[in-house]
């Protein structure tokens, strides 16, 4: 398997910055091996991520959209280096990321989790949570500096008056406040990349937009590269300039958010959009374009994993996964309906 075949960044929309990607993942694969019950049987594994590539740019957000089992959380964990990829490569600011030196990597890439109630240690107060990254990465060396910078961070995430929040415990805060503390903790590291794994899906509806707007503001102010993982395609459109759709571990479509959502090309994307709640659409009781459930990742369908549910499935879909088809304007998809595209390097892997 060719590991370090670096691809050139995909040409994107016109306001694409001229600088290169700050974090790039190429052909990531992740299999979680399962315990062998039968010593003579074949080795089984959960094929969580199958050949995903993406690039993050400073000041821009990329939304990773998919349902459960799509592999989006695994991708986030791979990018945060909480798990090691089975194959594929990561590069930060153009340099390949080596196996060691996690600390240095973590000073550049931070992760915000989905559940605000679970991601803060109930035994420590806000001050402790913020002081750890400040001390670890030497942004503050004594208590006075820690307090100063912690207060500043709380102000930046709009937890005001900051003094009141500094010594609160997580159980004294609401979900939205906790999530802001989690974001503040991630910012304390002063990263260049922020990976947000479904940051608002466990919050009340009326405060979600507030949180998203906060993250947009921080993205602009700090010139962060943001990976926004969600199952809600409407918020992906709201938040991110670019969207990547995953299904059962495979990336199926990607491109500028508006383009992907208004003109979805892959049948799965079309299914997602038709299934999303939309009050403007007239009600109907007819079945959505494709029935069925997300497949098992232990014995996934061969070739394109969507083929069992796809209304346009062809025999070739079962045989192999299609190469990337470039649809123009940065919009691409992996689907035999659109041919197998030009011979761009960022496609098949051995």
């Amino acid at each position, binding site marked *: 398997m060719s590991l370090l075949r670096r691809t050139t960044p995909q040409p994107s929309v016109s306001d694409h910055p001229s600088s290169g990607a700050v974090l790039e993942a190429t052909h990531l694969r992740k299999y979680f091996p399962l315990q062998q019950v039968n010593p003579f049987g074949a080795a089984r594994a959960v094929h969580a991520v199958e050949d995903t590539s993406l690039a993050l740019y400073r000041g821009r957000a990329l939304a990773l959209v998919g349902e459960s089992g799509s592999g989006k959380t695994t991708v986030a964990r791979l990018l945060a280096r909480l798990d090691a990829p089975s194959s594929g490569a990561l590069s930060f600011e153009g340099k390949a990321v080596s196996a060691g030196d996690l600390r240095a990597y973590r000073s550049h890439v931070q992760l915000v989790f989905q559940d605000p109630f679970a991601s*803060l240690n109930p035994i420590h107060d806000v001050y402790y949570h913020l002081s*750890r990254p400040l001390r670890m990465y030497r942004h503050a060396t004594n208590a006075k500096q820690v307090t100063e910078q912690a207060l500043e961070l709380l102000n930046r995430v709009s937890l005001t008056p900051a003094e009141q929040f500094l010594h609160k*415990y997580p159980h004294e805060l609401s979900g939205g406040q906790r999530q802001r503390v989690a974001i503040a903790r991630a910012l304390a590291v002063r990263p260049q990349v922020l990976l947000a794994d479904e940051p608002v899906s466990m919050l009340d509806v009326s405060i979600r937009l507030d949180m998203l707007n906060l993250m947009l503001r921080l993205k602009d102010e700090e010139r962060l590269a943001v990976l926004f993982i969600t199952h809600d395609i409407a918020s992906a459109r709201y938040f991110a300039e670019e969207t990547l759709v995953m299904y059962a571990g495979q990336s199926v479509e990607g491109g500028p958010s508006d383009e992907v959502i208004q003109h979805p090309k892959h049948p799965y994307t079309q299914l997602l959009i038709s299934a999303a709640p939309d009050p403007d659409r007239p009600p109907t009781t007819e079945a959505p374009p494709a029935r069925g459930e997300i497949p098992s990742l232990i014995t996934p369908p061969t070739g394109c994993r969507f083929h069992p549910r796809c209304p346009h499935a062809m025999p070739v879909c079962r045989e192999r996964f299609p190469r990337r088809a470039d649809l123009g304007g940065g919009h691409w998809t992996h689907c035999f309906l659109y041919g197998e595209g030009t011979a761009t390097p960022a496609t098949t892997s051995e």
Partner: protein
Amino acid sequence: MIPVSPLSQAPVSTTAPAPPVPLQPGIAPRARPALPKGLALLLGLWRIMTSNRKIATGSAIVGFFVLVALIGPLFVRQNPLTYTLTLTQPPSAAHWLGTNQGGQDVFSQLIIGTRSSMFWSFLTGLIVVAIAVTIGLVSGFFGGIVDDALSLVTNVFLVIPSFPLAIVAVQYFNHSTLTIALVVALTNWPWGARVLRAQTLSMRNREFVTAARASGERAWRLIFFEIFPNEIAIVAASFITTTIQVLLAVAGLEFLGLGDPTAVSWGNMLYSAYNSSALLLGAWWWFAPPGICIALLGGGLALLNFGVDEIADPRLREVKRRVRSSFGVGALARRWNRSSSQRSQAQRESGPEKGAQA
């Protein structure tokens, strides 16, 4: 004879209670004067100690014994080991608890023995907990081969019987309280280690641990600053339970004559009482006091276990500010007026809404 420590009866809740509906920002909490952290902690501790009859009784008993152990010997005028001529006398003005067959003053023996018994029980309890914590946390956190190896060690020590080992040890080394304390320690740590290993295994996958790891924390910090503080309630409860077991174990071994015959302790008092047929003589003042003390201290520690949960968990500490003391006229009045005494606890446990919260 030697009791096995059943840690499963430690009444500790290991799952987090449902988070109470949080305060709204902007609405000021009930005005409380800002106290220095140490004083606030002590006040909080006092409140918890007096909040519940069980905890109050337990802490009173244990506190009393600690006091006796610390300053009691200062008030003892007679040397407990001096043989006098007044043999086997019932309690009198000169000897408050009478004398034993050697004419020794039982009361002074009891007071001096308190120090010895308490010291060795608590020390052994500490040793046990220290070993259990280290092994349990390390094997639970790292898993893999480390876990396998340490679990093997734990399982081996689990089955070593403490009484035969004590006999062998005192024959081989010497008849001293230290020997039997060590024997007891070595045979009692595996239970706690197993419990903590299981706890750590479940904790290590909790999201706040992953978040700390993603933040860049190193392994030792994750173990001791992220995971361990969440387990303090279990550790404290297991410390108390272990202390009870150890108290009984040490007293038991001494009763069998394996202890240091020159030392003054409750177990030794029982040993000499048995050897001198105190029961046949009807000399209840000889064996009843040490027996009662052992039972009382054990009981007090058991009652104290109820308060451990709340002392360790800041969530319960906070909400507890609404619970008032159960002593005094105010409490009596409240008991007349209200029916349920578990009201505040039940209210805390069932918040208005679960599910996605703001």
